[in-house]
């Protein structure tokens, strides 16, 4: 059966002085899933980190600080640094470079903080510049209080209405519009200060303290601006010298950080391992197929004093605790992405990747069903795979999925629907022989492709519906079958339920075939699946109810009652949701038709208009509009086809059998991106 990789639980036991060698070799193998040791007792304790751990972590700390300070996160190094070089140069380089980097960064920071300071001063000064008084006017009085700042509302009126009150008669107020508010200065007798502040507060007063200098604000602004300019050139210089450091040491710093991260990871592994005074025990899982390889390499690395034993756990324990590693044939592997997005299967469950791999491209291809878009999708998939996929596994796999999906779309477009970019190869006739959309086609614009369509999206909608219903039956039957296999050894009752559901599903499928009319494909399916029973019908208000379908469904219902007693009513209601699942597959037809119609409508509008006028400008504009509209259809169509094809797998298919929630197989290991090990 197509289950995840079979695992063996093993124990590696040996003397403590060999521990680092064993760890080293496990990391190089990248095959061993460590099970953390948690329960200490007086004899067996959690291990202590290897000796070099603390020195390496210190180095790592400095390296990471430098990488952050130099903003190396997005730095793309042009070469990989060998591990020997890192080990040889790192001690000395880290110390000297640390000083240099700190110096330069501090320089830069002090300059930029000065610039910020001056900029703040200038902002304040610009308010006083608006008021127009020299700065010395705002201070140095014995009996006068000064208010300067901004208000949200004009204040002059407020004082004027209040000026009737005698106490406000001796008061000087300036008010000038300034940045959506008002710059104001008020001079008054000290005794009036409190009342004035009250009036100001009502107008939304915000105090701005005048700078402690003399002279005109504009002059000061000019001086500061010049200073800022000077500092900015200094800042540029500082940036340049930091950039020099980045270029010179970036590759080394990233490689060293990576190398020491790996070293620390290895050195801290004993924290997950059981040790006694003189020995250690490592517990974990290894794929059964790689057990011998692991055994050999550990003996080779650490000698005969190590013992590697298969613990031969029971099947029940294996099912319960083993980590899950998917194994699929090469072309299906990209589709593991969809399984991981959902959740890994349980160890005892069937891995559905291979089914998604067979079905997803078919559904996707049917929904797009266009040679032009299919070819574009293949191109897009290739770009995703080769460009974006360089650094990201997800993009690489998605690219391959799009490539495969695009291939099927192109095949269906070329041989089944015979259209490209929404335009059919030849004029389309409806069932009465009339031309659809004036016979718009590649042939009509002078390109003759010798392929005859077997199905027209806009005319043969019923055939597409028949395909959808047929796909629904096949797909969900496989799902229920897988459910049966999954439950067979686990829960007999659940397994029987799956069989009953299979009967009901076939009954529903038959009944739909009985009710549907007017499509050749349906007629073919009808003859194949219902032919012998076609005369056993009960007429019911214009519909024919198939007796065989009815019997199948009734057997299913009877089975529910036999298994569940009264609780079966809930299951009976579920038949409705199974029916809605079947109907749900008609989205294959729906997306295909909707996308095809949209593309054809855009083509119809633009192409007819293009050749009608004969004006060259209109033609150019028309071509641009056409390309934009095609892009829109392409993007919308691919996105919705992709999501809908995925949904049919996730919802209608998976829910028939899938549990998920398996533990990820995470072998001890590492990946080097910036550093490289010698090939010896």
């Amino acid at each position, binding site marked *: 059966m197509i289950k995840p990789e079979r695992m063996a639980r093993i124990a590696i036991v040996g003397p403590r002085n060999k521990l680092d060698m064993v760890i080293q070799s496990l990391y190089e193998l990248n095959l061993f899933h460590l099970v953390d040791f948690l329960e200490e007792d007086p004899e067996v304790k959690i291990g202590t980190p290897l000796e070099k751990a603390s020195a390496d972590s210190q180095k790592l700390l400095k390296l990471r600080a430098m990488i952050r300070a130099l903003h190396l996160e997005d730095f793309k190094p042009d070469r990989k640094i060998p591990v020997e070089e890192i080990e040889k140069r790192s001690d000395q380089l880290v110390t000297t470079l640390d000083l240099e980097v700190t110096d330069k960064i501090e320089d830069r920071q002090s300059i930029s903080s000065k610039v910020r300071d001056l900029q703040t001063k200038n902002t304040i000064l610009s308010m006083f510049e608006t008021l127009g008084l020299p700065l010395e006017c705002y201070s140095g009085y014995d009996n006068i209080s000064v208010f300067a700042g901004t208000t949200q509302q004009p204040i002059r009126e407020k004082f004027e209405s209040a000026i009737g009150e005698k106490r406000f008669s001796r008061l000087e107020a300036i008010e000038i519009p300034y940045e959506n508010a008002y710059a104001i200065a008020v001079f008054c007798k000290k005794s009036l200060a409190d009342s004035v502040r009250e009036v100001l507060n009502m107008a939304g007063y915000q105090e701005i303290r005048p700078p402690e200098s003399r002279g005109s604000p504009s002059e000061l602004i000019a001086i500061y601006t010049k200073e800022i300019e000077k500092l900015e050139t200094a800042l540029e210089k500082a940036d340049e010298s930091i950039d020099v450091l980045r270029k010179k040491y970036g590759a080394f710093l990233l490689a060293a950080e990576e190398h020491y991260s790996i070293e620390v990871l290895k050195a801290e592994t004993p924290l997950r391992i059981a040790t006694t005074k003189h020995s250690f025990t490592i517990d974990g899982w290894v794929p059964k197929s790689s057990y011998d390889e692991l055994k050999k390499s550990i003996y080779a690395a650490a000698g005969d004093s190590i013992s590697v034993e298969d613990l031969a756990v029971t099947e029940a324990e294996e099912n319960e605790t083993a980590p899950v590693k998917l194994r699929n044939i090469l072309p299906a592997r990209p589709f593991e992405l*969809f399984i991981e*997005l*959902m*959740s890994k299967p349980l160890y005892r469950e069937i891995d559905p990747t291979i089914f998604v791999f067979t079905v997803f491209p078919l559904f996707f291809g049917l929904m797009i069903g266009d040679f032009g878009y299919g070819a574009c999708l293949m191109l897009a998939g290739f770009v995703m795979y080769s460009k974006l996929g360089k650094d990201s596994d997800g993009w690489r796999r998605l690219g391959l999925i799009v490539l495969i999906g695009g291939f099927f779309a192109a095949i269906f477009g070329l041989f089944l629907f015979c259209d490209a970019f929404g335009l059919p190869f030849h004029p389309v006739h*409806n*069932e*009465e022989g*009339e031309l659809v959309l004036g016979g718009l086609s590649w042939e009509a614009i002078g390109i003759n492709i010798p392929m005859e369509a077997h199905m027209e999206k806009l*005319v043969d*909608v*019923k055939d597409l*519906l028949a395909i959808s219903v047929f796909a629904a039956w096949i797909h969900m039957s496989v799902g229920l079958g897988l459910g049966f296999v999954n439950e067979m050894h686990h829960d007999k009752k659940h397994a029987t339920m799956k069989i009953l559901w299979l009967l009901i599903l076939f009954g529903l499928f038959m009944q739909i075939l009985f009710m549907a009319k*007017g499509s050749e494909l349906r007629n073919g399916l009808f003859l194949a699946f219902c032919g012998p029973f076609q005369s056993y019908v009960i007429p019911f208000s214009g519909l024919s109810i198939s007796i065989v379908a009815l019997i199948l469904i009734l057997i299913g219902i009877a089975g529910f009652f036999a298994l569940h007693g009264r609780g079966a009513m809930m299951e009976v209601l579920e038949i409705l949701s199974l029916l*809605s699942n079947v*109907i*749900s597959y*008609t*989205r294959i037809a*729906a997306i295909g038709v909707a996308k095809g119609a949209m593309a054809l409508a855009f083509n119809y509008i633009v192409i007819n208009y293009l050749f009608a006028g004969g004006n060259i400008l209109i033609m150019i504009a028309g071509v641009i509009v056409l390309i934009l509209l095609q892009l829109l259809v392409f993007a919308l169509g691919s996105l919705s086809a992709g*999501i*809908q094809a*995925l*949904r049919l797998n*996730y*919802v209608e298919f998976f829910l028939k059998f899938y549990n998920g929630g398996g533990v990820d197989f995470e072998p001890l290991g590492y990946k080097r991106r910036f550093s490289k090990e010698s090939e010896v």
Partner: protein
Amino acid sequence: MDPGLIAIGAGLAIGLAGIGTGIAQQGAGAAAVGATAEDPKMFGKGIIFMALPETIVIFGFVIAILLYAGMGGFAGG
């Protein structure tokens, strides 16, 4: 019956079903995006909950097609 009325019926069937799907998806979609932002592993489950209401508009589509075929929209009927 007047084919115009049937066509209006078909339009209403898919249009109203679309609105229904939209209303159902606004809640599910927002919650799914939130959950995925917190834990990318929720993506698959998010898509399921997000995609569930889409069946409503598919029902609308099927009814619209049946009505359209019933009035002879694909000719022959």
